[in-house]
């Protein structure tokens, strides 16, 4: 069965590259590019995985992650956090907020695809 991945990211060229990589793996890709409405999108689409950028317009990725974990319907959804900040405290904050995995930009295509495979399997 085709796996569904929701990509919440506001940088259009990153979205384009990641979408290409995910579709090449025959996954279904849904895109949302704003903090506002992100949690509703997760509830509505019930994806197998959410790829969530930390720095988003209007509402930050950490707050969205917190809301995803608070919502019974979405609490168990795997979330891969993407960020340009790779400091230990950011990693810790993401772990504490319930991130399944934390990856920093720039990421390796092979590594991110392998991680996603593992998370959706």
């Amino acid at each position, binding site marked *: 069965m085709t796996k569904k991945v929701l990509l919440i990211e506001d940088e259009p060229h990153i979205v384009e590259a990641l979408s*290409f990589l995910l579709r090449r793996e025959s996954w279904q890709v849904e895109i949302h590019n704003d903090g506002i409405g992100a949690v509703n999108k997760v509830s509505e689409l019930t994806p197998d995985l959410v790829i969530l950028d930390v720095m988003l317009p209007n509402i930050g990725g950490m707050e969205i992650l917190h809301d995803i974990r608070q919502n019974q319907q979405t609490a168990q959804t795997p979330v891969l956090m993407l960020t340009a900040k790779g400091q230990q405290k950011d990693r810790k904050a993401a772990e504490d907020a319930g991130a399944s995995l934390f990856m920093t930009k720039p990421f390796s295509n092979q590594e991110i695809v392998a991680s996603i495979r593992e998370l959706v399997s």
Partner: protein
Amino acid sequence: MVRSLIGTRIRERRRAKKLSQTMLAEKAGISTSYMNLIEHNHRAIAGRTLLSIAESLEVDPKELTEGADHLVLTQLQEAANLISEKNVELNRLEEFVGRYPGWSKLCAKLYENIQQQEQRLQALSDRLGHDPFFSEAMHLMLSNVTVLHSTSDILATTDEIPPAQAKKFIQNMKTESERLSDTITKLLSYFDETTSTETQSPMLAPSKLDQFWEMHDYHLFELEKPELNPKAQIKKMMAAWNFQETGEQRLAEALVERYANVADQLPLDDFVIAAVDYLYNPILLAQKFNCELHDVFFRFAHLPSEYDGQILPQFGLIECDGSGGVLFRKPLKTLSLPHKSSACPLWPLYRAISQPMQPVRAIMETPTGESFLTVSQAVWSGLNNYTVPPTVKSAMVFTSDYQRFLPTHERRALPTIKVGMSCEICPRTNCSARRSDSILDS
């Protein structure tokens, strides 16, 4: 501890004046044998004998007692502890200071300079970590590099890409390369400007008063216990720090006296217990201790980092007058504060000025994504005066540790204000409060 030095100092100053022991003893009206015992630190002296010897040597009695060299001794002791040099004869430190006052002052001065340079380096390092422009530029560059890295990898490793998609990818790479180049150019120009104009700025070269607070971590434990005689402690602190400028000396004294008054009114033990009980709500704490809200703010900003094994939330504080001129500042590592004015006009600190006495509570979010719980209030000052109009003093206390005590439902009910540091380095281009262009603009 230092009393034993007095004899040594007397001997050194006598020799400097080319007086024999007998001559000095005669001048001071004591026997030569007694003078000999004093100079070899076998007799403690004080009172009239000390005064007459000081007078005979034409020096201030303080120069012969511990006060004069106390700071030098402390600094040398700190230097020895810091460097952990085993061969330093710590047990002969007092003798060294007494016998070689010039050399010891020089060593202490060198140590002070090293400390200042370290603080400067720390300030630069903090700045790199929290500078909004630098942070924004790094974020942009990492995004650019991510696109370049990922897209070029796709192009290099995928055998069959539809031509339209391949063309689009190449176009994306071109755009991102241009953005990257642009960001790097701006970053270099920013550092050029800051190197030439800001290296001597107050932000990087803290005043002695800033150093005083930083050295004490904004907490003066000497003033927390009434039995330690706060007035005497204040006098001792001022003497040890030896503030050079009269204005700075007065300001330092006023602030430390204010600290002592607040510590007296809001005793640390009671205050910490109440603060935890009341979830650090300053209004409830002001009611409990029957004091002004500004006193609670001041107390928050001067709490120790740890109390009775419990890590306390860290609060910053900024106080300004009605024109925005900064009166007191305690920055946090995650939020620098201006020294004079020109902060972001959206800060609740300034909003409070428009509605004196009304407390304002809000979450303040910086461009780097840090968020702070802030409580601000402006109060009237100089009322009951027919001739001079009253003025306003505003204060804002803030903390990034609020998630430890602020219930989620209260947090969500608070407005979030997206602020910057100053317009020049603020990436929020569409801000209605902008008063000058940002150097981040494309």
